[in-house]
């Protein structure tokens, strides 16, 4: 039965229990579901070509054996099977292949197969997410046929493009606009069309990754400030506009979307979403609900109306968590196999790297998705609540668009043919809390003499090659009008001297903030602090 039919014939309580009942699960019930579904997945996966390939002839009978036999995996382990779409190697027949960025221009895309059963679970969990977010208290959700969704997602084959098609199987929502049927439009055209549609008939939900949601919100401010071309003139629109105008004038500010629209819920996800949270809340008059979803993982968790952190869905993936310390040890020693804990072992206040095994015939097993989560609350038999922190430290993700690693940075420098010395790259936030890439760079003495090496020229030059090398980086400018690269030139030899003084090698990607300060102090000839001890 479709969800819209259930809305007519089921009681709210029944529907709530069906979709959001997992919120009331005890931790032991939650783990029972996790383990049971994982048991099914192990049975399927170990018999598949991919499973046999990764298990190297071993055959784990249960979860414990699997955790002993199979080391944690990354996309490189699957690439030979998934990139050529070798469906015969998988444990479930793929209904659709979803694409995402892998590692900038070096290894452009990742592909992830979705089985029919995964799609059903994905849809079920998305509906649960909407019910949880629209509720003002337990069971009192506000969801109906024809609800209008302002949607800032990319079309298929990206994961965000799945949402309209999935919901269409269950309930008729009005998408503002439907990214799949309007895939020929550019991003900004789609945003414009979405707003135009919203102004004509209102909007109930807003979905978007944090940076895009922010861009859309700012676009609204700009369009309302500089006229509202393209909007249909009707008594309803006029009344809505006049009301918004009145409120903004009364409060002495420009019009914000919250003056015009009354949202039931506002979802946001993705890297750096947190830094937009406050301004989005101000702009829309409603606090955004955090959502955890990814190409490889599907929708794995969501916040409810209380905004106390996300609860992970028990039936989307099997979750393991690498404690931060273990993860850092692994960063220093790539051969070290970090230990993992399960959902019933996570501790409040700790930060973890997430490891997933996709259930329902998925391809990924013990897969390091590359996301860090912080446990907000756990214990007393309650389901742990988590919140997204960032990507893992050796990957820099700006606004959920691009993935910059050590090797991609080296490649950009190589392509640019600039004679550059040592460098470190760190993701930082400016005073507006916008993320940017901060490159701390040394220029060799020869280059200082022979080339134009001013900061502006270097920034321009490297940005150009970043855009050429990684189209997602280019999209930051094109879609969000962001220029994320900033350069600080260090005195030649500073990094080496700092490392010598410290006695360890400095990570080139995302070193700690103390190290950055240390570098600057080193350059200025000031004493360097090392773990609180002056050297």
């Amino acid at each position, binding site marked *: 039965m479709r969800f819209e039919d259930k809305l*007519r014939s089921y009681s709210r309580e029944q529907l709530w*229990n069906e979709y959001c009942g997992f919120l009331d*699960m005890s931790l032991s019930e939650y783990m029972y*579901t996790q383990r049971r579904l994982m048991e099914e997945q192990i049975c399927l996966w170990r018999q598949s070509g991919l499973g046999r390939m990764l298990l190297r002839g071993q055959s784990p009978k249960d979860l414990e054996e699997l955790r002993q036999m199979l080391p944690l995996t990354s996309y490189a382990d699957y690439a030979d099977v998934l990139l050529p779409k070798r469906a015969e190697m998988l444990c479930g027949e793929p209904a659709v292949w979803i694409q995402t960025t892998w590692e900038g221009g070096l290894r452009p895309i990742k592909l992830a197969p979705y089985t029919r059963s995964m799609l059903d679970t994905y849809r079920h969990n998305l509906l649960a997410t909407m019910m949880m977010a629209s509720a003002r208290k337990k069971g009192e959700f506000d969801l109906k046929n024809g609800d209008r969704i302002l949607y800032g997602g990319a079309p298929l084959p990206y994961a965000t493009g799945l949402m309209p098609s999935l919901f269409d199987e269950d309930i008729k929502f009005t998408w503002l606009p439907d990214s799949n049927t309007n895939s020929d439009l550019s991003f900004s055209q789609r945003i414009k069309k979405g707003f135009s549609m919203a102004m004509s008939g209102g909007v109930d939900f807003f979905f978007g990754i944090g940076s895009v949601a922010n861009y859309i919100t700012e676009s609204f401010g700009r369009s309302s400030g500089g006229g509202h071309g393209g909007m249909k003139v009707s008594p309803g629109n006029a009344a809505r506009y006049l009301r918004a105008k009145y409120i903004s004038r009364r409060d002495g500010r420009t019009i914000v979307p919250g003056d015009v629209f009354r949202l039931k819920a506002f979802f946001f996800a993705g890297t750096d979403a947190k830094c937009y949270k406050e301004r989005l809340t101000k702009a829309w008059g409603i606090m955004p609900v955090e959502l955890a979803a990814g190409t490889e993982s599907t929708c794995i968790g969501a916040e409810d109306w209380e905004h106390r952190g996300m609860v992970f869905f028990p039936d989307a993936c099997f979750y393991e968590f690498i404690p931060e310390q273990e993860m850092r040890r692994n960063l220093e020693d790539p051969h070290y196999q970090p230990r993992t804990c399960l959902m019933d072992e996570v501790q409040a206040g700790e930060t973890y790297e997430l490891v997933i095994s996709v259930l329902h015939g998925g391809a990924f097993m013990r897969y390091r998705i590359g996301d860090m989560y912080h446990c907000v609350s756990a214990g007393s038999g309650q389901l742990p609540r988590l919140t997204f922190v960032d990507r893992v430290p050796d990957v820099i993700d700006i606004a959920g668009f691009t993935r910059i690693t050590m090797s991609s940075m080296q490649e950009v420098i190589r392509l640019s043919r600039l004679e550059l010395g040592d460098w470190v790259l760190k993701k930082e936030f400016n005073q507006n809390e916008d993320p940017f890439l901060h490159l701390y760079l040394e220029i060799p003495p020869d280059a200082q003499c022979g080339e134009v090496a001013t900061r502006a020229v270097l920034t321009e030059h490297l940005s150009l090659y970043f855009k050429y090398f990684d189209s997602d980086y280019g999209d930051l400018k094109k879609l969000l009008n962001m220029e994320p690269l900033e350069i600080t030139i260090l005195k030649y030899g500073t990094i080496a001297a700092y490392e010598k003084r410290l006695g360890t090698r400095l990570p080139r990607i995302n070193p700690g903030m103390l190290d950055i300060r240390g570098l600057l102090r080193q350059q200025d000839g000031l004493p360097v602090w090392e773990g609180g001890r002056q050297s």
Partner: protein
Amino acid sequence: MSNVPYLYINVAVLSCFTLMFVTVLAVKKTPEIWAFLAVLLDAILWAGGSVLMRLQIWPGLEFWYTVSLVALFIMELLFYVFTHTFAHRKGKLLLGIFIVWNLLILPGTVSGFYLAPPTAVTLENGATVFTYDLDWHIVIPCIMFVCIIAATAVLLVQVMREEGTHSPGIQVLVASGLVMLVGNLLQVGIPGNTFPFDMVAGLIFAVLLMYALYRRRMFRLTLVVSRSLLTVVMAAICLTFAANLVGPMRDFVEGLLGLSTDWAIMSVALASAIVLVLAYVLVRRLLDVVFVREEQQNKLIKKFSSEVSQSLSTADIMEKIGTVLSSEIPVEQVYICLPADGYYRARYCSSPLATLSISISKESPQISYLREQESYLILSEFRSTTKYLSLWEEEKELFRRLNIDCVAAMRDGTEIIGLVLLSAKEREHTFSAAEINFLETVTSIASIAMKNAALYEKMFREARIDPLTGAYNYRFFVEKLDEQFAACGKECLTLLYIDVDDFKLYNQLYGVGEGDAALCRIEEAITQAVGDGGMVFRTSGKVFAVLLPLQDTQRGRSLARDICERVGHINEAPERRRLKQLSVSVGICSAPYAASSAKELMDNADLAVYNAKQGGKDQIVIFRGASDLMPQHLAERTDAIVDRIERGEGEYRTALSMISALTAAIDAKDHYTYAHSKNVARYAATLAVAAGLNDDQVRTIYAAGLLHDIGKISVPENILRKTGKLEPEEYQIMQSHVNNSIEMIRHLPEMDYLIPAVLGHHERWDGKGYPRGIAGEELPITARCLAIADAFDAMTTDRPYRKGLPLEYVLEEIERGSGTQFDPHLAEVFVQLIRTRSLPLSQQVSARKG
């Protein structure tokens, strides 16, 4: 009474209210039932007050008017209370306000402040009508009514939003409120109206409330009211209406249509008849809807209960469950699953072509739901639980594929002993409460019957099953062999004896545990090879038997080859490579070709397997049955057959050395016994050839003849050579030689197949022999041959206590003993052989004769 228009309607409605009240009083009280009783009581006061007011009975119009009016004013409040209780609301504030408000306006109602008592006016036609004088005061209670009605409406809307419009009884509740409202509006809204719209609406209102409770399964109508009572009430209502309608109808036809008196009477009579027929049909339908289905269900349950309680077969009970459920619940298929190896596996389906390869794990969420929450599971309800999330895709797929919509558990205490799976109803109809009740009753009854039947079958099986291998045991083999032999009649029946080779060695090499495991694997291999074509038994430690009804020797041999091959592959599995290869020797005998009784079939197959062992093991030997040799070739043929033993060929290599050693020992002790044994062996073997026994039997008889008196080694020589009559003790010692022979042969490697012949050589056809005293064909034919040969040689040769007897005398003795001491057929053949000189006599007898 007739002067008051439509009074009979008021009376009828009052009667209905009273009847309903009395009926519902018998129901188990819940808050909803109490609220309904309050509504009914108020309705009785309202209708009763109205009737008595119209009749102006003591204490008078004003009193009854007040009763009726107060009851009417309270009705809205009581309906609100009923809705409040029905919706399980907790808040009491509004309820309290309404109660206080009602109490506050009560003095005004009683005093007639809001609405003064009516005035009775007699019209020209003699009818008495009641006229009311309205003024603005009536607005005061009306405000309260509007508030209560609005609160009730809001409450109903809330309930519908929360529970959905399909929540049981909610639509009926809304309808009842609307009917009551419309009835009262019509009553006051139509000027000059005398028809009691409000009373009729009140009756419909009460009936709908009762139906709403029924939909919530608050009671079963048939438990509180009988069909006959309802029939009488309905008949009374119909007749009252008919009697009261005749007059007005006649007036209408005569006055308005202008028909003559005769035509008017005829028209009224015809119309009344039509109305009565229609009323009858409608009432009948109503009663059928209410009662017939339940009556039918009750009958079915009674019959089902009686049938299953008499059955001790689970298959039969499952068949009956399927039949009874299919007859009452319109589903395509009914599956029944029973527990086995951690699963509930399908054992029955109402559709004979459906697959039974269905299993549901005992650990699955559905089972835990059934164990912890309900005795039945409706899939749509189960989906709303978190347990559904942990369902495997294949488990969901199973339900989707079979279109299963409902699962009921058969329980024994907390344990689930079986599942009943129902496919979805046609056109996606949901299961009604009555159907679920029926299902629960059937499964509950079936649980007990299934438990008993399963216990009985388990005991039955255990009494017939070998606990180690799971094959049938020897006891059941004997039973089944006789049964099948009789059942097959003239058709063929083949028996295979399968003896595991060198099993003792296997046990010694790898231990008893591994030996047991090997036996289990061999049993599995045999069972797989045999399939449904026969039955597998474990008749002793390392011997299996396969009974193949209606299958001939050729089929038996192909099966035996298959079994040998499978057994040979058992230890080829990688984890068992270290173990010795297993092999079996198979003996086959088929009736009627080579056996004429079950016993003979068993003996012959046994002999065949012994021969297979003798023949070097890991081979198949078929017992071939009667030989068609001609008598003139008898001696040569016998020589040819026994020559294999004499020369120690093939399998007799070991046997020869044993026999030689033993016969040498007896020769050294008592030469007579040695010579006697050789004679007996030769006579008996020749007799066996003449009697048509096969070569293997002949060789067995010959070897047994050589060793039949070997036990005499332990008999003292003074007894053996005593010339006089033996004393009883001495005779007893002499008799013990049979058992002594057995004791010695028993320990000889692979010669134990001689035991039956040696053991029986002093037995008699009439059962008076020793040591066991068995008779007739119970005696192995080998023993019967030996007995004649032994007696013949003993009588014809010289003994220490007498000379050898004359040949003719001896033959006559044998003829006299035919049918008492000897097998009559063999005795006849033997005597014939001597008389026709077909049997070469011993040297001593020949010399004496010569």
